């Protein structure tokens, strides 16, 4: 059983009250006890702050996906009539949201949400009656005491009666006591079986404790309690009868009264305080005899329970009476009114009194206070009685009741005939259109008309079908567009030919059931594309199969590559139900759109009107065939995918070709291109050419004559795309023994009713099969008979039409629980939804009901790249990962680059940018707003600090909805070494880190960065409910795959020659203080002074805070003789540098990764690097290290030492340094994101430190 539980009771203001705690505690316990049952918790996004705590509360109990969040376009509070239209629309939507999970039962623990609130919406059977709904009933006190609670407050009355109406539609009430359940039967006329008491429990913290002297003293000083006391707690409310309690206390025998205080524990308003104190005074109570504590904290409440002598609860009416249970759980003597639920909670008749009789109450109090034995007896009883009530017991009862509800409730079975024939629009080509689907439709119509009042919708000049003309109105598409609401049902027949082109747009406007005669539909979509509907194909490919498919569409030379992609996604998404003729189509859907994509598809065999069986002689006469001829026929239009050439070759190679009685006939139109010509040539060249025929297009009657005349059929296929093989069934229907190969849907044919060759058959196998059919007459006859029997049994038209009706009705029942149902219901709302409200409503509806089928999206944020590609190292990384992830294998995911700006909320799909990035046209697409749903993942690939900070709101909205958000972190340097960055960098970076640390996790470019980030979190991390994940990955070393730039300057050969003259040291990276250029330059000045002859090459653009260094470089005496500074060179030239240098110096004081290191190693260049942790990590120690000091001498010495080793070839080689490709990097990231590899570290805030 799958059950959806509405958790709004734990979100609204109720969360501060008992109802909120009840909801949370009960559902947590139900989750623990769920066993085989599936639980989905539904939350309201309007109460954003409550969602993380609730996710955390269930983190150990339920999978992440079990918590689902919906949006509401508010305000929707039922206390104001202004909200009515919005509220009613939201009620429809919340039910559609429940129903979208296809639950067996819906459970609403708190229906009355929320008085005076504006965001909560609960609903029972406003949209649907198909899913049984259970509701917790706390009490009906406002209804029973209308005068006191409702009539003085019209807004409250309006709201309450509105909610009550929903309550009355519930299929099952779970009451918190026998007494409240009884009220539902008495006041709302619920039947016995629809109400179950599941009771309630109190928090475990209520238990007996020994109070210390200090605590007694504190109660005395804080509350003025200085002697034994009688306690009451609860609300201050008319029905609570505190006045009665005070009067009864006043008439206690004097000795008892003087030795005890009366303590009323609860929040109290001034007005009530004055009233109660003056009542006490009138009753002769003075001084400290009555204590009104006001609000007390939880801990004090527990102490007070444990400190009191007697607990009295005199209420006239309760739903349950939780304080009674809490006091008993603390081991106290409790007496209470004999009203409503209190007797069952207390469980003891001699502890009850009549609440409206002050004397009786006083007598009972005196009895306990004056009789220690009785008091102890009550205390013992209380402890035992309290054990009966537990969350375990309540949850167990709830489960039992819900299971019983599920058992009792039968899904509405569709019984035929339907009570009334619904009006059905039948959209399909019909004869005389030259398509098999037209003939099929003509056969289906007369049978389907038993169930529906049919109008045919066609896009053709005339319909030549006697039945249609006699029975069904014929309308065109234009008429249908404006009259669609005259129909109860719509059915479309989709096939892979131009006869169906208009249906794509029509289905989008007017959804209906789709009969998918062909799964791929790529032929027709390609046809439309070639006719100028240019945006449909690439958009379909992107939506269904991602960027690789779009790239193929524009770049693949062989269209067959692109034919590998189905183009049916928009049809599947707009269809209200899908009917297919073979299981093969279902398998294809699972293959392309996920395991559950075809769960509710209906499989209905292709119907066949029984063919006349004794027409063979007449048919042969008509076709001028001799009785003795052995005629092999292949039916249907000719083409490469029909393998007609294989049949022709096999037949020519078989003995049949040599026998003058054997004939081969292709019944159908020849292929119009080279393929057809080749067939004709081959036939003309063969000696048997007079016995081989291609008939050309055969109308229905000619086609049937050939079927009747043939001795055997051969129907072959390759590259099947899920189309229905009607011709095979025709052969079988005429009792022909038929040879087929197991391609596509033909593989599903029963092996004993056809001669089934393997999908990839050999010529020999086909020749053998032909030969046997020819020679073995009994086999032939038996096979034909079995084929006929199979058709009669499974393809009976009447039976198939019944299945159609059942499938259509079932699909409409389901569709009416979702967007379709809302579309139907919304126009009828009273009051009507204002036009201006339609946008927000649509917005939430789209957010709540994602399209189906759909793959989860992997949203790659490349904002910085889209807005301006600065060509920095970070952007090189971004481009490399973007390419690998979008074009690589992200199986089952729709990878979509997205971007935002810092001045407008929301992200857009970066489709224009991506088209340019892939070098394909971009006129087919626009950058529409991103729509994200539960299960999607966002990955901030770029470093776009300002934008991320500005978009925090959007990302938070997504995260609430169940979108996990991650970021790539390149370094923390602006925060760890602010002195080497321009002013403001530190603050910007800090703010960015602060923002991203509120989401789900980060991907750091090295383990070192991950460690630093973890340390940063210890200091700056904000309080969070669930762990933050830290992963790391390394960069790729294959520059080729990071989309490198090209070009060499004219003086390149000269420069490169100079480098050959002496040992050359290379440094790569932007000129900025952190990189250690100044220190290195000074070191080389020392070396040159000492007469050591070396080159120093610096490759990098000028960065910040290096004006004096740059000046130094410009005017340096060695400039362009032994010192080279190359600014802004291409990646290609850089490669040349790597190839000509002898050693790479990495002198940076801090790096996130150090891309030049692996690029150098990739070129076999040895490394001389500063000894810092990240370089140890990246080089795996395969380098010569110098100490992390600022002295030029350190580097000068290191260079000399290295040169000495280099001369003896003893220097550390970088060859063994591990390096990987960008593809490996992308795989590392994807594996981590898709939960295949665990996090390197996790972090959660120290709850006490916050």
């Amino acid at each position, binding site marked *: 059983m799958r059950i959806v539980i509405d958790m709004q009771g734990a979100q609204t203001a109720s969360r501060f009250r008992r109802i909120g705690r009840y909801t949370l505690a009960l559902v947590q316990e139900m989750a623990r006890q769920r066993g085989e049952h599936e639980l989905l918790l539904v939350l309201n996004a309007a109460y954003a702050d409550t969602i993380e705590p609730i996710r955390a509360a269930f983190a150990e109990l339920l999978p992440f996906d079990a918590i689902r969040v919906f949006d509401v376009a508010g305000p929707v509070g039922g206390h104001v009539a202004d909200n009515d239209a919005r509220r009613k629309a939201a009620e429809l939507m919340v039910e559609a949201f429940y129903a979208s999970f296809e639950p067996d039962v819906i459970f609403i623990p708190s229906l009355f949400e929320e008085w005076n609130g504006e965001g909560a919406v609960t609903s029972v059977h406003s949209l649907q009656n198909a899913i049984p709904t259970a509701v917790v009933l706390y009490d009906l006190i406002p209804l029973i005491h209308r005068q006191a609670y409702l009539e003085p407050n019209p807004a409250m009355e309006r709201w309450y009666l509105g909610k009550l109406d929903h309550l009355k539609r519930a299929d099952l009430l779970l009451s918190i006591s026998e007494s409240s359940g009884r009220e539902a039967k008495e006041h709302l006329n619920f039947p016995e079986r629809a109400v179950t008491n599941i009771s309630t429990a109190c928090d475990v913290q209520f238990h007996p404790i020994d109070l210390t002297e200090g605590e007694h003293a504190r109660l005395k000083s804080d509350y003025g309690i200085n002697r034994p006391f009688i306690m009451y707690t609860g609300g201050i409310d008319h029905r609570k009868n505190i006045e009665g309690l005070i009067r009864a206390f006043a008439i206690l025998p004097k000795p008892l009264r003087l030795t005890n205080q009366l303590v009323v524990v609860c929040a109290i308003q001034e007005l009530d305080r004055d009233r109660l104190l003056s009542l006490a005074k009138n009753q002769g109570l003075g001084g400290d005899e009555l204590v009104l504590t006001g609000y007390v904290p939880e801990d004090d409440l527990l102490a007070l329970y444990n400190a009191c002598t007697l607990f009295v609860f005199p209420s006239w009416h309760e739903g349950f009476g939780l304080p009674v249970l809490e006091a008993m759980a603390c081991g106290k003597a409790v007496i209470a009114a004999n009203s409503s639920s209190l007797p069952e909670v207390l469980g003891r008749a001699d502890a009850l009194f009549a609440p409206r009789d002050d004397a009786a109450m006083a007598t009972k109090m005196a009895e306990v206070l004056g009789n220690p034995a009785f008091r102890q007896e009550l205390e013992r009883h209380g402890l035992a009685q309290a054990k009966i009530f537990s969350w375990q017991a309540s949850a167990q009862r709830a489960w039992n009741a819900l299971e019983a509800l599920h058992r009792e409730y039968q899904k509405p079975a569709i019984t035929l005939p339907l009570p009334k024939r619904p009006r059905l629009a039948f959209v399909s080509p019909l004869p005389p259109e030259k398509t098999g689907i037209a003939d099929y439709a003509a056969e289906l119509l007369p049978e389907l008309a038993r169930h529906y009042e049919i109008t045919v919708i066609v896009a053709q000049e005339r319909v030549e079908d006697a039945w249609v003309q006699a029975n069904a109105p014929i309308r065109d598409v234009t008429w249908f567009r404006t009259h669609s609401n005259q129909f109860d049902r719509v059915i479309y027949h989709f096939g892979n030919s131009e006869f169906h082109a208009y249906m794509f747009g029509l289905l989008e406007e007017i959804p209906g059931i789709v009969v998918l005669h062909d799964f791929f539909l790529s032929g027709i979509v390609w046809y439309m594309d070639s006719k100028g509907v240019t945006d449909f194909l690439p958009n379909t490919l992107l939506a269904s199969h991602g960027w690789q498919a779009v790239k193929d569409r524009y770049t693949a030379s062989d269209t067959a590559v692109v034919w590998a992609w189905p183009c049916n996604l928009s049809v599947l998404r707009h269809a209200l139900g899908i009917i297919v003729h073979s299981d093969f189509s279902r398998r294809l859907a699972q293959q392309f759109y996920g395991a559950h994509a075809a769960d509710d598809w209906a499989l209905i065999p292709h119907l066949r009107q029984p063919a006349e069986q004794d027409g063979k002689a007449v048919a042969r006469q008509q076709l001028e065939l001799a009785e003795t001829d052995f005629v092999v026929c292949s039916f249907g239009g000719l083409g490469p995918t029909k393998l007609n050439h294989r049949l022709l070759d096999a037949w020519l190679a078989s003995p049949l070709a040599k026998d003058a009685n054997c004939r081969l006939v292709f019944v159908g139109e020849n292929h119009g291109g080279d393929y057809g010509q080749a067939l004709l040539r081959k036939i003309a060249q063969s000696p048997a050419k007079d016995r081989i025929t291609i008939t050309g297009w055969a109308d229905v009657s000619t086609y049937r004559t050939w079927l009747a005349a043939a001795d055997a059929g051969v129907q072959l296929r390759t590259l099947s795309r899920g189309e229905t093989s009607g011709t095979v069934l025709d052969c079988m229907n005429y009792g022909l023994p038929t040879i087929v190969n197991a391609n596509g849907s033909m593989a599903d044919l029963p092996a004993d009713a056809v001669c089934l060759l393997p999908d990839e058959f050999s010529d020999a196998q086909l020749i053998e099969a032909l030969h046997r059919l020819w020679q073995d007459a009994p086999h032939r006859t038996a096979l034909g008979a079995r084929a006929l029997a199979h058709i009669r049994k499974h393809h009976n038209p009447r039976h198939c039409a019944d299945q159609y009706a059942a499938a259509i009705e079932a699909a409409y029942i389901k569709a009416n629980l979702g967007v379709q149902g809302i579309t139907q219901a919304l126009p009828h709302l009273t009051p009507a939804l204002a*036009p201006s409200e339609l*946008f927000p409503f649509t*917005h939430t509806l789209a957010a709540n009901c994602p399209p189906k089928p759909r793959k989860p999206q992997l949203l790659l944020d490349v904002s910085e790249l889209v807005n301006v590609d600065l060509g920095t190292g970070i952007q090189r990384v971004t481009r490399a990962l973007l390419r690998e992830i979008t074009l690589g294998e992200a199986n089952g995911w729709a990878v979509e680059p997205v971007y935002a700006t810092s001045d407008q909320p929301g992200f857009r799909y970066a489709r224009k940018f991506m088209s340019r990035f892939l070098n394909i046209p971009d006129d087919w697409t626009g950058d529409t707003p991103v729509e994200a749903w539960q299960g999607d993942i966002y990955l901030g690939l770029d470093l776009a600090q300002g934008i991320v900070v500005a978009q925090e709101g959007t990302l938070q909205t997504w995260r609430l909805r169940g979108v996990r958000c991650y970021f790539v972190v390149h370094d923390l340097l602006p925060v760890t070494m602010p002195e080497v960055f321009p002013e403001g960098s530190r603050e910007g970076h800090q703010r960015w880190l602060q923002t991203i640390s509120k989401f789900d996790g980060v991907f750091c470019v090295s383990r070192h960065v991950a460690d630093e980030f973890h340390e940063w979190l210890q200091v700056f991390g904000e309080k969070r409910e669930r762990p933050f994940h830290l992963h790391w990955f390394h960069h790729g070393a294959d520059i080729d795959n990071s989309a490198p730039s090209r070009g060499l300057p004219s003086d390149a050969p000269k420069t490169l020659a100079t480098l050959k003259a002496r040992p050359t040291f290379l440094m790569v990276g932007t000129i900025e203080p952190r990189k250690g250029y100044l220190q290195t330059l000074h070191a080389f000045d020392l070396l040159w002074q000492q007469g050591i002859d070396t080159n120093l090459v610096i490759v990098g653009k000028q960065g910040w805070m290096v004006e004096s260094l740059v000046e130094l470089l410009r005017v340096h005496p060695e400039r362009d003789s032994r010192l080279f500074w190359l600014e802004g060179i291409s990646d290609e030239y850089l490669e040349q540098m790597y190839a000509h240098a002898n050693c790479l110096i990495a002198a940076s004081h801090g790096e996130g990764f150090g891309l030049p290191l692996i690029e150098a190693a990739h070129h076999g260049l040895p490394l001389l690097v500063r000894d810092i942790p990240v370089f140890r990590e990246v080089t795996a120690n395969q380098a010569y290290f110098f100490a992390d000091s600022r002295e030029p001498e350190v580097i000068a010495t290191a260079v000399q030492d290295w040169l000495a080793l280099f001369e003896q070839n003893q220097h550390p080689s970088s060859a063994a340094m591990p390096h990987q490709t960008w593809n490996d990097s992308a795989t590392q990231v994807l594996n981590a994101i898709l939960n295949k590899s665990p996090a390197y570290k996790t972090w959660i805030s120290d709850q006490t430190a916050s």
Partner: protein
Amino acid sequence: MRDSDFYRAFEDKHRGSRALIKSRLMAYLSFLQPLLTLYPEPEALDLGCGRGEWLELLTEQGFAARGVDLDDGMLAACYELGLPATNQDAIAALNACADDSLAVVSAFHVVEHIPFETLRTLVHEAFRVLKPGGLLILETPNPENLTVGATNFYLDPTHQRPIPPLLLSYLPEYVGFYRTKIVRLQEPEELQTRRDIGLLDVLSGVSPDYSIVAQKPGRKSALGLFDSEFERNIGLDHYNLAIRFDSSIAQRFSALESLCHAALAKSVDAEAKAIDAGVKADQFHGQLMGVYASRSWRLTKPLRWFNLQLRRLPNEGFKARFKALIKKILRRMFSVINNRPRLKNWLKSIVYRLGLYPRLRNFYIKTNLSPKIDQSKQLSNLGQYAQQIHARLSNAMMQHNKEER
């Protein structure tokens, strides 16, 4: 003098010469160009065609254009030029057109002459008769121009009431047009770029006329041809001019502000040093010190906030920052209240009793202080999937409403 002659004379005097009018109408040509590529010899209907300048222009461009007008004096001018115009009521002319038959329906300086109900009918009918992607153009005096709105509009005694751009652009949106563009026209060209904007410019420099160009839904690829036109910003509105007026005044204050800035910059330095010290300290002292550092971070928050204000002040001006400050305080207040239901209900009941609730509520919603998610109010802000749903919902509502009627 016959009435009809009066009108032509009036128009000659106040709307300007034929050549002038024609040159002004050129502004619309770029909207029309794509239609010529979409439809061969597209049909256009001009309501209230007057002297026929527009008809002439359309015909030159290759449209099959015809017009209607009720004023024979004006029509005479059309006849003189051999332009196809007839004496017919605008609504009657539209009623006579078939569904999806016209590429352009236009009405220049007509809508301010007719009752609002008739205007609604006009837009409804135009939607029906336009082809997919077809354009509806309605031009009228622009009441955003204060001189026009307060005086010049009433020069014409047959004018009914000025129609604000938001109202006129909402009509087609409501009826189902794919998009609507407000095009402001005829402002002095040099005003676009001039720096020193005076009060007189604010009062009378705003585009004196405007039109709405509304496009009927069509194929995406076809609609795409018009994107650049619909995205282009045309004309001057009062908001723009007022802002520029403000900013030129604000410049006079800037000297004063930079003085403040220099003085306070020192405190920013001090802050940076304090933060640096905090970070360095925690590197040495591990977790315990970490807590201190985090506290220091929080302690310096007001300082950082102040720093941010300083940086934003010159950019956004005193008024905007002051408003933002008030908003920040209010938002904090509302958030505190929202999280305390008892306090909230208590406050609510007081406000109710004082009769202030509706006003406060409006203010609360208007100032967007509520913590709710930013709701999309525009079709273009909806994602593709949401747009499809929207189309289905509005279609269902429309069919339903039709039946109700």
